[in-house]
């Protein structure tokens, strides 16, 4: 029998960790907001939230998070991690917000300003997300579903893309590489759709 699900939400001072923790608590009894190595090691699932600019967020992460431990947990121990919004962006190869900056490079692609072709920016509101057939989330979303977005930058393309959305042009709404998941939208602000997505994320178990 596998151990009970527990979530550790990483807090580097640039995320709406409170909102993410609140929705997680409706899905799971064990939710901690912490950067402590013990908390990260004992959790079954990690979440990396994010609000704000790419360069600033990345800088804060490098200062405050035990990135080597997290990398080992994700890449070697195959612990599931989900990045949200800027938490998606910093996991990619590079970003161009605040000057071109290298990201962590765990996921493929460069985060650039949205090609909105004259539509208002930031891209704020509920937009339809189309999951690829082989996405981990596809079984939970047979029909395309709306999620809440707030951003001006995104991946135009990525070898790891698992969902897309459109705003003036197509962009990547979610990426996946094995146990590593990331979404450009905010599941914690997407009512029932967001809860369904997080619940599906928690179904991914390394020990299953």
């Amino acid at each position, binding site marked *: 029998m596998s151990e009970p699900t527990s979530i550790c939400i990483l807090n580097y001072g640039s995320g709406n960790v*409170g909102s993410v923790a*609140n929705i997680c608590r409706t899905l799971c009894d064990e939710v901690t907001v912490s950067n402590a190595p013990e908390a990260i090691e004992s959790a079954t699932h990690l979440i990396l939230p994010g609000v704000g600019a790419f360069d600033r967020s990345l800088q804060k992460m490098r200062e405050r998070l035990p990135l080597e431990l997290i990398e080992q947990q994700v890449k070697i121990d195959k612990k599931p991690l989900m990045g949200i919004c800027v938490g998606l962006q910093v996991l990619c190869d590079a970003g161009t917000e605040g000057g071109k900056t290298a990201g962590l490079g765990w996921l493929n692609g460069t985060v650039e300003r949205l090609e909105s072709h004259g539509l208002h*920016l*930031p891209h*704020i509101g509920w937009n339809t997300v189309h999951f690829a057939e082989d996405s981990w989330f596809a079984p939970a979303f047979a029909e395309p579903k*709306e999620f809440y977005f707030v951003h001006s930058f995104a991946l135009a393309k990525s070898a790891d893309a698992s969902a897309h959305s459109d705003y003036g042009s197509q962009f990547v709404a979610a990426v996946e590489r094995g146990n590593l998941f990331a979404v450009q939208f905010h599941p914690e602000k*997407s*009512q*029932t759709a*967001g809860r369904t997505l997080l619940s599906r994320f928690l179904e991914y178990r390394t020990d299953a």
Partner: protein
Amino acid sequence: MLKKRIIPVLLLRNGYLVQSKKFSKYQNIGNAIWAVRRMSEWGADELIYLDITRDGQYDAKRDDLRHGNPTSIEAIVREMSQSAFMPMTVGGGIRTLLDIEKRLQWGADKVSVNTLLAEAPDLVEEAAKEFGSQCIVASIDSKRVDGQAIAFIHGGQTSTECTTLNWAKRAEQLGCGEVLLNDIDADGQQTGYNIDLIAEVTQALSIPVIALGGAGEWFDFEDVLSDTQASAVAAANLFHYRDQSVYLAKKHLFESGFAVRKPELQPFITK
């Protein structure tokens, strides 16, 4: 595709939910916490709370207790953030960066600033850099003076002597990520939105605009969505008097072919 948002606005005055007419008459319409729960359950796309208390005092001396105890913005935002899981904007009385930080910590996603745009534009600029543009909404109250739309501050009491259009452009330059455009003349009149003004402002800005003021029936939303580039329609009074109002408004628009999120009731989850 990006959907047009339908946003209920909750006006709080001295801790009570109120209805407003032309920014000068206020009627107490009930308990704020219950109201926000309803709006959430009916599938609102977002919520905006504006604290329009003038003296900063929560009136606990009311003898009319029919509507229960007064509620602070803090209590509402905390409550909603624990169970509603939807975007929330909080405005009213914001004067410092700490005021903004506090509201974000309670669980707000965005804050709206109005008078601050006039009194401390440098602070607005700093806030946009510190918390991100997406987080700072410029709340602009417009009123016709000699046939021209002029931006007002101090809850509609003081003219900026600047046209609403230029005031909005300035807000964008300061780094605001969105504009909440309210028309004082239309407030509480149920005569429809100020379409010309909304069209003019949305055309000129590159950031999204939320239209507010004047909604009397669902058809009024249609005019905004058909004739302007507004990203969202907001209303206050209209949403408080009918059961499932937000749901019904969205259903009407959805069935009429407008690009709104499919109407769905959202269960209120308590842990």
